């Protein structure tokens, strides 16, 4: 990355905010806005992003930005879109950026309504797999066997027993034109997807796997490495869906066992602490393998018609 890219003058999301060291989310947001350009109004439901960017009197946002409540980001975005339409402000677009708590859980009804109506909003979920703003509680985006503060590992608990909610598929089932997943480990890929999504009208969705050193439990200089391992293991499949069909996947260059991902984080520590944990690791490996199979993430299993990216 050149120094020019680090200059605040070029940025729509500038430094000085209060994110934790190594926050994947702040990195993602900076690159989202690089891709959208300045003619966007950003809606952010309550969560880490709202908290670390909005202490009154300070703001890193150089685009108009609004936070209202936790569970209504999509509906606020819809309202802004309706107002722009009524005022014939055609050059301005709306982007909502929320965390997994607001997107997968509490704001899901509002999101589903927005998708079903096909409102012209690019909704981006920066997914770090738990409620980080309140200290790391379980969400329906938390991965299986992760230990969270409300579903902690213990003598009688393996942490979360359920799989992560398959939200991209649920969103695609609404019949929206564009759904994609991305990772903070691959920022160019992320920007490309945001740009592509902005080329469509109607409701669109991007889910970004965003690492959180503070709650996942890894050193803050490992943000990108941990995220990369998520992708390379098959835990975080990167794909694009257009009109309900998978049209592109990001190939895994060299597949790594899920253990190489899990062992980097304290939230999975308990499954390594005794022999019984083998079974859980195998279960997670099976999920990663099924992702690889389903999306054709290895070169030899790629669907014939899907464009391959490295």
């Amino acid at each position, binding site marked *: 990355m050149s120094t020019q890219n680090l200059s605040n003058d070029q940025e729509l999301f500038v430094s000085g905010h209060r994110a934790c060291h190594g926050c994947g989310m702040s990195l993602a947001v900076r690159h989202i806005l690089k891709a959208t350009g*300045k*003619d*966007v*109004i950003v*809606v952010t439901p309550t969560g880490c992003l*709202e*908290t670390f*960017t*909005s*202490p*009154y*009197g300070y*703001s890193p*946002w*150089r*685009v*108009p*930005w*609004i*936070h*209202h*409540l936790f*569970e*209504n980001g*999509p*509906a*606020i*975005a*819809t*309202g*802004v879109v*309706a*107002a*722009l*339409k*009524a*005022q014939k402000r055609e*050059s*301005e677009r709306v982007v909502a950026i929320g965390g997994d708590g607001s997107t997968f859980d509490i704001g899901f*009804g*509002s999101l*589903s*309504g927005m998708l*079903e*109506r096909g*409102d012209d909003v690019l909704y981006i979920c920066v997914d770090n797999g738990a409620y980080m703003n309140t200290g790391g509680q379980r969400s329906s985006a938390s991965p299986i066997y992760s230990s969270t503060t409300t579903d902690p590992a213990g003598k009688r608990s393996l942490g979360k027993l359920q799989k992560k909610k398959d939200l991209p598929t649920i969103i695609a089932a609404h019949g929206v034109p564009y759904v994609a997943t991305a990772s903070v480990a691959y920022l160019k890929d992320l920007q490309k997807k945001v740009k592509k999504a902005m080329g469509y009208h109607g409701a669109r969705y991007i889910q970004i796997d965003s690492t959180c050193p503070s709650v996942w439990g890894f050193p803050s200089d490992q943000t990108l490495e941990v995220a990369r391992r998520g992708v390379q293991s098959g835990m975080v499949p990167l794909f694009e869906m257009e009109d309900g069909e998978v049209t592109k996947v990001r190939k895994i260059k060299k597949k790594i066992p899920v253990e190489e991902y899990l062992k980097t984080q304290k939230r999975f520590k308990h499954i390594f602490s005794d022999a019984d944990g083998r079974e859980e690791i195998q279960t997670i490996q099976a999920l990663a393998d099924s992702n690889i199979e389903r999306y054709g993430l290895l070169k030899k299993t790629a669907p014939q018609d899907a464009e391959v990216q490295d």
Partner: protein
Amino acid sequence: MNNTSVMEGSEAVAVAVKACRPHVISAYPISPQTHIVESLARMVAGGELDSQYVRVESEFSAASVISGASAAGSRSYTASSSQGLLLMTEVFYASAGMRLPFVITGVNRQISAPISIQVDHQDTMSLRDSGVIQFYVESSQEAYDTHMAAFKIAEDPGILLPVMVCMDGWILTHSYERITLLEQDEVDGFLPPFQPVNSLDVNDPKSWGSYAEEDMLMEFKYAVHQAMQSGKKRMKEIFTELAQITGRDHGGLIEAYRTEDAEFILVAMGSVTGTVKEAVDELRSEGKALGLIKLRCYRPFPHEDILNAIKGARAVGVMEANFSMGSEGAVSMDLKAKLCGQKDAPLVVSFIAGLGGREININTVRNIVEELEGVAGSDVPQLEPRWVGLNTDILPKGVE
């Protein structure tokens, strides 16, 4: 100006909203509000009304959509009732705090449980502390007129708050009344397009809905209170300005009906005030010095006007279609608080009347007045509310 027709109360509201030219309407069905938003939907479908109409999946989203639209500088509107208004509550608090003006019709209906669709004021009055300005109307004509004023009040640069026009479900929304409509140019003259002080705009990027710590949150709340308090004067001016156009003066924040020299005064809100006025006339003709204060504005609480109107009265009976569980009627609580420590303050008695659509007729009012006269003579403090027409036969065993 002489455009009069007979129409349903809901239709009168829809016609009023249409004349106010909202950019954005968002709606979710709930009885008895539904006819209003159905009527607006027909107007949009028929090309008579050029509004963005967003059909949402919940009342929570309806209130959120109009909040987002307001932030982006558009005049916006929704209507709801009962559980729907409660579901919107969190949105109202946030939008008032963020100074987002819009108008809601709060069609009054009781709150579950038990579930019922009949009228009382528990729903809208539960939003008391949210920062939403609340008006209550007696007739559909008053509902029509008040909606015009509501947009102007909400969008006033010195106020900038959501405004709710509360009207009794069924009794007003579903009954037919002769309504005199304004001409569109009269409405346009009274209510120019919304000129937001701030709005979401890519050419002037601002951040909205910030986080405020203990060093500044209180000031935000104080500012909302002050907008309401100092807004009272502006609200009265707006009602006067409208009355000059319509030729109909419904009063300012209260209507004092035959309160001069009154010994006993009733306080009531909504459609029941029509009945109470008739009862006042009857009892006056029988020689009783009785008056009524119709509370048109509940928030901000117009205590200055009320205190002025009840000066010299012996006792005030507040007819409440609401109840604060474990205490008493909410209007009595406000009134007693403001009277506490005032010299020669009259006795205030809370009468719980009309919950869940329980009928209030002239005889009911006569009984209330009789009870009020009875307690006014005694020295016993009136700490407990009086439940009007409570059928003790059907109470569970052991309930006194």
